């Protein structure tokens, strides 16, 4: 069943177009994460679904009911805000129960519901405190409890963890995942943190400059980015993107005469054709000494990650990053040789669209 459908939605502030027509169908119970760089319109889209932002054109329907003209409270959405937005003068219980109070629920039932929700996020001991006396993580829990207590049709999260420290963020991520499994409520989560996005999402929506670039399962997006932007944006460290063209023998020539043998990409290896070749750092392997098909490079610097390391190397005037698990000492200026797994990506140099190497 479709929980939310977004049809050609646009947003304009004065003369500036923020969102240029977004289409999206969200199934009931899905966990959707909207990911994009800052200013891409992801929060605006979320706020339009919530009803906090007017919809310039297009339609948003929640459970087959067009909500364009409805007030936020009539849409059945609950939202968790970035800065928690708790009422400072109310206790935790007051904050959680406020929506029910507004809705006119009697006090005994209200208290019962608040207690139940508070227990599910581990807040039952703090109900009498005020937000000012809580830690960041606890405030975040209150904000989530406040959203849950109304038993909404849709949860909206607007970068809720960006004020938490790294460790707490991981813990809250787990919490959100667990709650979603328990409650099964359709959720839309906006973030600019791709780890958060990859780990939480059933489906990921990548936005850029007011457009949806790609929608898909996290693995799908990682393995088959549809555009140069997505390829560059998803994955840490970022994908190596080399601009170059094919020579008469079908080799990919880049930088100052560097040649890479590309076995796949049949039919696209037209001599003189320019493309962008994408290689994930984890697909780049270091070989011992030069071999057939390897490309030589010079180590620029090494980033130690603990279990592995990133080798930043110069290859024919281009920069290449390789994920390496070796422990051999590599200092700046050391010559190295790389080989690639065949997991290559190719993108058109003109419009950045993916060129299918292994047609699906």
């Amino acid at each position: 069943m479709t929980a939310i459908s977004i049809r050609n939605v646009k947003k304009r502030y004065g003369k500036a177009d923020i969102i240029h027509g977004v289409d999206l169908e969200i199934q009931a119970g899905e966990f959707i994460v909207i990911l994009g760089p800052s200013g891409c319109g992801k929060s605006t889209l979320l706020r339009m679904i919530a009803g906090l932002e007017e919809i310039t054109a297009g339609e948003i329907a929640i459970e087959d009911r067009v909500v364009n003209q409805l007030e936020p409270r009539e849409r059945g959405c609950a939202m968790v805000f970035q800065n928690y937005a708790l009422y400072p003068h109310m206790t935790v219980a007051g904050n959680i129960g406020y929506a029910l109070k507004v809705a006119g629920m009697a006090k005994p039932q209200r208290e019962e519901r608040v207690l139940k929700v508070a227990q599910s996020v581990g807040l039952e001991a703090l109900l009498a405190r005020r937000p000012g006396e809580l830690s960041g993580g606890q405030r975040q829990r209150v904000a989530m409890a406040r959203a849950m207590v109304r038993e909404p049709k849709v949860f909206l999260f607007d970068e809720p963890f960006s004020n938490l420290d790294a460790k707490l963020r991981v813990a809250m991520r787990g919490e959100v995942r667990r709650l979603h499994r328990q409650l099964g409520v359709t959720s839309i989560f906006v973030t600019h943190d791709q780890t958060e996005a990859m780990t939480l999402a059933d489906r990921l929506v990548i936005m850029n400059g007011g457009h949806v670039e790609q929608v898909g399962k996290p693995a799908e997006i990682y393995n088959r980015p549809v555009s140069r932007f997505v390829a560059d944006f998803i994955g840490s460290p970022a994908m190596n993107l080399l601009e170059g063209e094919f020579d008469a023998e079908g080799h990919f020539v880049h930088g100052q005469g560097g040649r890479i043998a590309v076995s796949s990409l049949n039919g696209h290896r037209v001599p003189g054709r320019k493309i962008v070749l994408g290689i994930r750092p984890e697909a780049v392997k270091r070989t011992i000494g030069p071999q057939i098909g390897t490309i030589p490079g010079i180590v620029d610097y090494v980033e130690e990650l603990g279990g592995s390391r990133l080798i930043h190397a110069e290859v024919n005037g281009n920069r290449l990053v390789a994920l390496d698990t070796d422990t051999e000492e590599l200092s700046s200026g050391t010559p190295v040789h790389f080989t690639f797994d065949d997991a290559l990506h190719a993108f058109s140099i003109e419009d950045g669209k993916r060129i299918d190497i292994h047609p699906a």
Partner: protein
Amino acid sequence: MIERSSFFDFVTYAVMALGLVIIITPFWIVLVAASLSLPEVARVPLTLWPSSHLMENLSAAWSRADLGPKLLNTLVVAGGVTIGKITIAALSAFSIVFFNYRARMLCFWLIFLTLMLPLEVRIVPTYSIAANALLPFQALLDATGITSLVETIAGIRIELNWNLLNSYTGLILPLIATATGTFLYRQFFMTIPDELVEASKMDGSGPMRFFFEVLIPLSRTNMLALATIMFVSSWNQYLWPLLVTTDRPNYGTVVMELKALIPAQNGTPDWNVTMAGALLVMLPPLLVVAFMQRWFVRGLITKDK
């Protein structure tokens, strides 16, 4: 920069002590004079040490100026003005800060401009409105020709008249518009994060509910600070009550009555009674300030929460 040296400390304390003396001396003189007998108060030079006639002076002043009912009157007027000012200020600031309409900034600046038009400047038009609060509507009807139309058709002459002179309404209403209060509230409301407004929208509360259940509780300290200032200033109002009340016995305020306590040109120079009256008149605002000062300071200083 905070510098700590014993010399600097000494200077600071000296300045503070001097300020204290300057402020406290008039009060002391009033208190001392109120406790003297008639011969003592007439003595030159000024006596600076209290005597034992305070109670009899107080009761003389109380009965001569009829202070009982007058204090009650003043309390009603000052209280009414204070409540009215806070209500108006909070509501207009609410409108200006949280609603988006075309004339928003115009309204704000119009309110702000009235800071430059205190009562003393607009006293004549204000008086004529108080004499007939419906005067503007009458003028409107006259100008549009409706009055003459109705007169020719129905033979009835429309005369709108609502006299506010000699009434609590007249004493209170013209004083409750306040640019200062609106401005103070506006500044406070602008510190409320947008997300809080949005959270309450998501929780389903309408604007008035947000106003009463979120804004008002959050602005409590501001409100008390404002109330303190407003109460003292309206207690001290002299010109306006003097103008709109001709019926002194029923609607006179204490500050006006103070005049009655000043010795007549050729009467007994009993300044001790005058001072006792002054003491009684300034007591309520003093008590209010003493009681509210903790809130008062907090409301004007703190920006957090």
